[in-house]
């Protein structure tokens, strides 16, 4: 067994990659290739970080609905990650790789081929990101009683979807895992759709819209009140995003509108003073993340996050409910949206018994904490015991890799 373990949190949006014993990922970059208009050669993975003008990039991603489907594309991205970013030789390294729960056999196979046949890693362990995040949380907050049993409920609000994962003794409890088919990508596209209809057509600028969403959106902690105040012409929730003009500026910025615009608030698009284009936003700012708490708003027949947690608990022995509820960990890019934790607590409290304490925690690094937990696991003896070696893969194939992954 090689000592060097590459830790790769292979998310739908970004790769978080590093080598063991370093708790912070060495690099976080888009898990995709991006084509700039007019350029022939797409930028691969970390090369996109150097690209200043987000508005002209269109991205291809190897991950669809949270699962690896395009291994050719992923190979290009990983090749850069291992050889140019980390400068490691996969042949003499092991890999700790995150994988979403309940991966299909076909996805398992693509992944195993990539890891062992294309890159030739010495050994590999695949673990759900939520379990790793819980591990990091245990180290951050040793005072929490549930953490002493390595027990907690992880809400992973990622790019492709949102998972509720009960963890006990550092392992995910499969029967309690619940998934809402809403992630950051859907929220970005939904915001894009709304502003394109109401303000300026942004349908071709998804990458920029992602940035705008991160700047502008918040989770309402009192929906009725926020809707009420947003109705006013001078709604305090109004913001305008000044779009980059592509000449003087390559990134835009958010600001509070200076004057109430005359007439309907939906009409104006071009600012009077200059040629700058501004994107008007008002109730979109909170009605977009709202769909995670009420997917029915979008016509999706699934429960919102608080209800999904209740459904998750139904799949777990009752004796664990108090521990799980006392230690809810929020991770993933969407969890970083302001108001997320308060809203979840407000929604969940009335749905569970008064006798139970409900504790909601947010790490300082909701996007990279799973990687940090991965680094902890990679440095522990448990990694070597659970990882599958290339030799075993060659002898027994992907099926065995699958059973190992499911035991976790």
């Amino acid at each position, binding site marked *: 067994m090689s000592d060097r373990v590459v830790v790769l949190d292979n998310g739908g949006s970004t790769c978080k990659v590093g080598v063991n014993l370093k708790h912070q990922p060495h690099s976080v970059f888009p898990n*995709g290739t991006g*084509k700039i*208009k*007019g350029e*022939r050669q797409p930028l691969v993975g970390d090369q996109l970080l150097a690209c200043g003008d987000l508005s002209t990039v*269109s*991205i*291809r*991603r*190897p991950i*669809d*609905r949270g*699962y690896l*489907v*395009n291994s*050719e*594309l992923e190979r290009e991205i990983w090749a850069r990650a291992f050889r140019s970013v980390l400068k490691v030789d996969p042949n003499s390294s092991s890999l700790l790789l995150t994988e979403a*729960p*309940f991966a*299909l*056999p*076909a996805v398992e196979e693509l992944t195993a081929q990539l890891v062992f046949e294309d890159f030739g890693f010495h050994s590999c362990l695949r673990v759900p990101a939520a379990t790793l995040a819980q591990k990091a949380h245990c180290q951050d907050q040793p005072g929490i009683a549930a953490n002493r049993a390595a027990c907690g409920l992880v809400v992973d609000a990622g790019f492709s979807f949102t998972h*509720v994962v009960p963890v006990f003794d550092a392992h995910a409890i*499969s*029967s309690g895992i*619940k*998934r809402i*088919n809403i992630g950051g*990508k*859907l929220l970005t*596209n939904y915001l894009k*759709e*709304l502003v394109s*209809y*109401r303000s*300026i*057509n942004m*349908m*071709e600028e*998804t990458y920029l819209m992602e940035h705008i969403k991160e700047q502008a959106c918040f989770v309402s902690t009192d929906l009725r009140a926020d809707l009420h105040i*947003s*109705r006013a012409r001078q709604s305090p929730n109004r913001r305008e995003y000044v*779009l980059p003009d*592509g000449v003087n500026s390559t990134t835009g910025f958010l600001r509070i509108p200076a004057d109430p615009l005359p007439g309907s608030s*939906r009409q104006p*698009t071009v600012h009077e003073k200059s040629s700058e284009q501004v994107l008007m936003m008002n*109730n*979109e700012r909170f*009605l977009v993340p709202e769909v995670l708490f009420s*997917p*029915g*708003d*979008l*016509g999706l*027949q*699934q*429960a*919102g996050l608080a209800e*999904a947690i209740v*459904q998750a608990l139904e799949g777990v022995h009752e004796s664990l409910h108090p521990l799980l509820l006392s230690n809810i960990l929020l991770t993933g890019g969407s969890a970083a949206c302001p108001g997320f934790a308060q809203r979840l607590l407000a929604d969940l409290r009335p749905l569970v018994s008064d006798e139970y304490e409900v504790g909601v925690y947010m790490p300082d690094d909701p996007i990279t904490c799973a990687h940090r937990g991965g680094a902890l696991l990679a440095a522990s003896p448990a990694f070597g015991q659970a990882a599958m070696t290339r030799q075993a893969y060659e002898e027994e194939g992907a099926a065995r890799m699958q059973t190992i992954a499911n035991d976790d």
Partner: protein
Amino acid sequence: MSGARPSKRRSTRDKKTSQRVGLVDKAERQQAASARLDRLEDDQDAGEALGHLSDDEFRLDDSDEGAQIGEGRKRKKGGKRPGVKRKTRGQLAEHRGPKAFSTLLDEAELEDAPEDGLSYLTAAAASSVYPARKWCSVCGFAATYKCVRCGSQCCSRKCFGTHTETRCLKFTM
């Protein structure tokens, strides 16, 4: 906002749509709703097809865009989307190369008894026990009207007017 229900205002504007259909049935509405949810998962921008094309086709798009460079930035006002023809999932499946997740999911035939009863399908959160809320499809505030033709919600006659002019029965957004 009193007076005639907006549904009665079947006015002159939408000859095109009224020629096409009178009413859209529930199944069609559901189909449109799930197609929209699918679109919200797309990687590619509206001007391009889904992200599962071969490199050859990918480059083909590229040259089209090259021609647009001189035209400056193309942000159109209003809700008009470029008339993009999307590939259907069926067409994509015929294509060699990577498959979309939905294709892999179909092929996995998870309905036929996973060993421990747990699978990708069973992990999906079930429906909410609460009734769906109603928001205006135009402005986003609480809706009180429902378009009888397409089932979209609207809050006022004003928004309903916008709805019939822009996207009633088009299911574009």
